[in-house]
């Protein structure tokens, strides 16, 4: 039995599917596809499925993945990809299916492109002049103070038509996982750039040595 990693983009409408709903959606898509995916052996057998690095509601991604298992020998992964794409909900597009090599625990960073309406640029650039950017990260049990400057020293803004965008790379490991909404929340509260106007797109997942996670790590 091998573990198969299904890589997909999650954009537009699909960015509003929560992780819990995503599990149900994927379960049904896999069932419809009639691909030879492995079912658990319990009293209520269901398709074994693990999402590698779940995304927050409303954020988009170019590099989501779900792991399933199969007992099939030499599966035709291109056929898997085509079958799945034929029945995915709007906004989800599978771009690669491959045997999983790296363990999900090797993910250390997630990279994002964050975009605002062009008018927000002056407010965003004020961030670069700050000496510290303290935010509170709420965990399950405790709250933690974090200085965003430690991870994002500056916002390197570029203008693209009516948009202004910048890239950030944030820890996404078991020990520390920083949601980019911490940054957009800070920019709203401290600098007045509306978080509701921000679009967050995850562009890649990196390992601790900053090399891409898995074979090429999505589209990056």
């Amino acid at each position: 039995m091998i573990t198969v990693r299904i890589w997909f983009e999650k954009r537009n409408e699909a960015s509003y599917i929560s992780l819990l709903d995503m599990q149900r959606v994927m379960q049904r898509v896999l069932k419809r596809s009639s691909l030879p995916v492995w079912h658990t052996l319990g009293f209520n057998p269901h398709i074994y499925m693990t999402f590698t690095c779940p995304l927050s509601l409303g954020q988009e991604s170019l590099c989501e993945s779900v792991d399933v298992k199969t007992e099939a020998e030499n599966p035709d992964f291109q056929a898997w990809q085509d079958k799945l794409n034929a029945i995915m909900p709007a906004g989800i597009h599978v771009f690669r299916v491959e045997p999983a090599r790296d363990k999900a625990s090797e993910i250390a960073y997630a990279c994002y492109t964050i975009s605002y309406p062009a008018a927000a640029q002056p407010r965003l650039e004020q961030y670069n002049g700050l000496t510290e950017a303290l935010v509170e990260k709420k965990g399950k049990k405790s709250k933690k103070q974090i200085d965003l400057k430690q991870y994002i020293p500056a916002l390197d803004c570029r203008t693209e038509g009516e948009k202004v965008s910048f890239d950030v790379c944030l820890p996404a490991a078991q020990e520390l996982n920083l949601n980019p909404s911490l940054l957009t929340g800070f920019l709203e509260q401290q600098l007045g750039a509306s978080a509701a106007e921000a679009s967050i797109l995850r562009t890649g997942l990196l390992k601790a040595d900053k090399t891409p996670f898995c074979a090429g790590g999505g589209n990056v």
Partner: protein
Amino acid sequence: MFDPKLKEALSHVQKPGRYTGGEPGSIYKDKDKVDVRFAFCFPDTYEVGMSFLGEKILYELLNQHENWWCERAFMPWLDMKAEMEKLGLPLYTLESKDPLTAFDAVGFTLQYELSYTNILAMLDLAGIPLYAADRDERWPLIVAGGPCTCNSEPLAAFFDVIQLGEGERQLPAICAAIEQGKKEGISKKELLLRIAKIPGVYIPAFYDVTYHEDGRVKAITPNEPGIPAVVTKAIIRDMNDFAPPTNFVVPMVGAIQDRASIEVLRGCVRGCRFCQAGFLYRPMRQRDASLLNKAAQDLCANTGYEELSLSSLSTSDHSQLEELLDDLNSWAPQEHVSLSLPSLRMDNFSESLIEKTTRVRKSGLTFAAEAGTQRLRDVINKNVTWDEIEKTCRIAFEAGYTSVKLYFMMGLPTETMADIEGIADTAQKVVDLYYSMDHAKGKGVQVTISCACFVPKPHTPFQFVPMDTAETLQAKQKHLLESVHSRKIKVNYHDSKTSFLEGVFAKGDRRLAPALVEAYRRGCYFDGWEECFQYDTWMKVFEDLGIDPHFYCNRAIGLDEVTPWSHMDYGVTHEYLVREYKKALAAQTTQPCNRACGGCGANHLLGGPCFDYSKNLV
């Protein structure tokens, strides 16, 4: 990508997935290439609306026409409604995200009286004038269908077209008339006159209602030539002409009923006198087992659902049920699909039935006893005996079930406190039965009594009876709680105030329209949701408008009175309703109609007898 305003709204609300569309099975077309655009509106939340089978049937039927596009809209929850109002975002359909004003027709399904204010809220959110009289040709045609159209008079002023009966042929006929009318460029009036000729269509503006001085309806008369004095509901004579839908839009945000569902039969043979659906959908017609099995298999394959429900008013009355279950069980377990039968009767519930439905997954058991004593069960013609309840529970306990839910009603005609005590006694006898049988040591039983307030409904033999007052219902609820002496019995009951309002609108007339508008203006919507229901506001509205709500639901209707719904014909004659009402008062039962024809009149809808009585059907 989404409109920036919509994106902003979505970032502020809970469960934004309710407002985005894009679900597997949803249908997208090029709007420039379609001739008729129909917005199917469900006046409650997405989760409730996506559980509704009727929408799935009509969505598939309309979208089979290449040049028509049926899309969906739902009532946004409070947070989204507030965001949309704040941002000036009109109510839109999930597929194209176009506002309702871009459509040729906007259809609402009337499932529940307490969703009426949501209809006004949805029209208002879309910027559509509420009253039909205020809408000229520029506005979409506002259409209603669903069970509550059987007395849609409180809503008559808001709708252009109201559909009585079954929509499978009727709604496509209306869309075809719209398509033709657009080509010819005819006026709204001319279009309505044409649509009025479609079977089961009621155009409220073509009728005048006059009243007696005491408030009762005097007469309902057509005001246009060629308009029938009485509208007879539309009906599908042979259910095999329409296979159940094999494609569903599969919600991604969990719906209340999130499973594959096929309608095995329509109508009901039982004739329970309180049950409006049992009278509205007569005669009972079933689909062939082979057709159902094929549809079920296709539906599960197309949707990926792992649970299949056989739905109807009374699934165990299907004459080929065992055969159907055998067919389904030949493929369902391998496909990891479990079967559920939500509407089983206690008088023909068998061991083989329970075995065939629980092969994959065991769920809870719910039985509708409806009343606590045999006398009262005879009054309502719920022909279930204690022996049958005992037998059913025995089978269930032997199969390993340890929790049973029993449905009852209170406020039934002729009911006394002894009948209320009977509810508690029935539940206690079920508990005692469990402990008298072999059961796993230390494993207790849980019996849940779920008790609804009876609301007399139009087109039933109980339409004549006054509803119990809130005070009486509350006293009965209190008495029920006092009559329960076991911790193994849990009692749930409905709020009598919501039932009161339901009763008012169920039997209401056209004079209630201003009350709906005024209550909506004062912030009443989602009335069916406990956290939103504003009883005091409603009472103040009635008072301010000089309307006595008790007139509608707490008053006995004379057997010869003109009811607000007397121009709506569902096949069952007035004489039959009177006959059944009198039998009820005498606690006399009536046979199920597949055993002996009671002469209700609905056979005329089929043009012949409903059943072949020469064969033994049960």
